[in-house]
Each structure stands twice: as structure tokens, then as C-alpha cells.
């Protein structure tokens, strides 16, 4: 206990119940919060995966083929599917946070939170569609 929390002469004794290590399992809201925190590990994994891809492309056709073969390995596939789920969850919580962090005013009136979050989702959809067009159809 830090010195700033020291007992005083007025309160010579007190009780400080400690938080259980498993406090986050008791409520669904806390569990979803911890899962959101955990999602950052998978975000880091995707960054690493992207860097490995860039390195493979840089090293030539043979290295790229090896990377693709490694990516097709069942373990890597499962990790990537789980990571995609977590990263999507991370993105959703991020976009839902936007109206909390930004209070947008238009013509002197605050823009409703739904519109602030909605514009983020719309931008997400547009960028995803553009990338899909570029990679698949373009």
C-alpha cells in the first residue's frame, strides 16, 4: 500500500478487501472488456504477419511461395481466423468509442453519436470495398 494511502490517526484500522485475480470472470461486461484488451495481441500478430509478407515479397518469388505454403498450414490458418475475429471485435469497439472521444458540432448542434460512429463504419466499408476491388477485380 502506498504511503499516500496510509492510515491516519482518525482511522487507525481499516479493511481493504483485495480484488480477486479472477474479478473479470464474474461479469459479462468485464469479460468482454478483457477480451477487447486481449485483442491487441492479435492486432500485433497481424502487424507481424504483414511484415513477414513484405519481407517474403522482397526476397523474391521462391520466398513468397514458401510464405504462402506456410500460411496454408492448418495451425497458421486457425491462428489467422481467430485473429481476424479478435481484430474485427477490436475495430468495432474502436469505432463505437469514436463518438465518446469526438463531440462533433454542425451548425451549433452536436451531431448524434449514431451518426459519428456510422460515418466511421461507412468509411470502413468504403475502404474495404476499394481494397477488395483492387485485389480481386481490378
Amino acid at each position, binding site marked *: 500500500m502506498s504511503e499516500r494511502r496510509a492510515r491516519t490517526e482518525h482511522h487507525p*484500522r481499516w479493511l481493504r478487501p483485495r480484488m480477486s485475480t479472477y474479478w473479470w470472470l464474474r461479469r459479462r461486461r468485464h469479460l468482454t472488456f478483457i477480451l477487447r484488451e486481449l485483442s491487441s495481441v492479435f492486432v500485433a500478430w497481424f502487424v507481424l504477419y504483414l511484415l513477414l509478407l513484405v519481407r517474403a515479397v522482397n526476397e523474391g518469388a521462391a520466398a513468397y511461395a514458401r510464405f504462402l505454403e506456410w500460411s496454408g498450414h492448418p495451425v497458421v490458418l486457425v491462428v489467422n481466423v481467430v485473429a481476424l475475429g479478435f481484430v474485427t471485435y477490436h475495430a468495432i469497439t474502436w469505432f463505437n468509442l469514436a463518438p465518446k472521444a469526438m463531440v462533433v458540432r454542425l451548425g451549433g448542434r452536436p451531431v448524434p453519436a449514431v451518426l459519428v460512429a456510422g460515418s466511421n463504419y461507412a468509411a470502413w466499408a468504403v475502404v474495404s470495398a476499394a481494397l477488395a476491388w483492387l485485389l480481386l477485380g481490378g
Partner: protein
Amino acid sequence: MSDTIKMQVARYRPEENAELTFDEYEVPCPREWVVLDGLNHIKDEIDGTLSFRWSCRMGICGSCGMTVNGEPKLTCATFLGDYGSGPVRVEPLANFPVVRDLVVEISDFMRKLTSVKPWIVRDEEKPLSEGEYLQTPAELEAYKQYSMCINCLLCYAACPIYGLEPEFIGPAAIALAQRYNMDTRDEGAAERHDILSEHAGIWGCTFVGECTRVCPKHVDPAGAIQRYKLTAALETVKAFVVPWSAK
């Protein structure tokens, strides 16, 4: 609805027992009775040794915050009838040291609150002869929500970050700092920035969002913290790009 309801009330009597224990009481349960009425009935009619804080009975003073069936609540605004046939379990607010029964020690919060200077800071006071500092309704609206805070500490009890890291300055103190930062009459934002942008300040918050959910006055401390994160991040970028603008 039954005529009475069972209340399980946490007791901490340091001279008798080093642990929290529970006493059970049967109290009347008229439609209009809140948990605080039940506690006052116990104190007046059954067991005068029970200790708890309360004052206004109308959600203004912020004294009667307690944990009711696991949730931080203002006991003056929580109806006994909402708990059906009971029992209603009343415990002290979580995350604070308990000094007796339902009374918690809050000087940690009081210190943190003053550290963010929750008052109007002026570089220079204008002379009285120039009159009041006027504000438009829109300028009032910008901070009014945060000014509704009654320091009841339900947000601290709901915040797992504060429970795990007692150094965290906490939801209400940050919301109240924002209340003054956003006030057009105030010039103290730079002074508050140093405290708020520390690790134990806004960056301690990982946006669990529980503070906003439990706030009985709809202050939205989580929103205040996320907004200030954006402000602080922009300040840092500004200080990096145009270092001569630093205060």
C-alpha cells in the same frame, strides 16, 4: 409484494473482528421505501450500532453510495421494492478502505480532486467594476453535463482500474477537470494538463465504461476521459511539430 424484506448488511467492527461480516435484518417494505430508508429503520428501531453515511435523501449530497446486491448505487435512489422478495445485500463501496460497517475512507479521492484544480482558474481576475463573466447558453451547455457530478464515488467503486491501480486519478476527478477545462471563463487547462496527462491520469483509463453506466447523474466520465485523451494527444503532436508554441 410482501410487507417486509430481508436486508443483509455488511458489518466491520475493527475492535471485534478483522473481517467483514453480515448481519441480517427484516425491515418493512412499503412501496416508497428506498434502501436508505431500510438502513435508517435498522439504525432507529433494531440495531443502533450500525454505521453509514447519508444526508440529503434526494440524490444531491452524494453521501449514501453503497454496494447494493453487487452494484454501486445511491441508496436514496434505489427502491427496496425493486428487489422483489429480497434479500437485499448492502456492502460498503468497493475499492475504498472500510473504516466501519458501510463507511469508507475517501481522503484519497479528496486529494486527487484538489490536484486537478476543480475551480475557475484565471490568469488575471478582471475588476469587479467590469461585472460578471458572461456566458452564452451554448457555452454553458458545453460543460453542464460534467458539472452535475455530486462526488458520490460510485464511478470509483465501479472502476476495476482504480481497484487494481489505486494511483489512478479516477473518473470523477477527470470529469470535473474537464468541467472546468471546457468552461469559457477558465484559463487553467494548461495547469491541469500536467496532472491529467500523467500515466496515472487519463492514460490509466482503458475505457471499461463502467463509470458512465453507474453514474446516477449521467455525467459520462468515460466520455470525458476519452475526449481528454484526444485533446492530450493533439497537444503532444502540436508540441512536437511547433515546439515554440509550448506553454
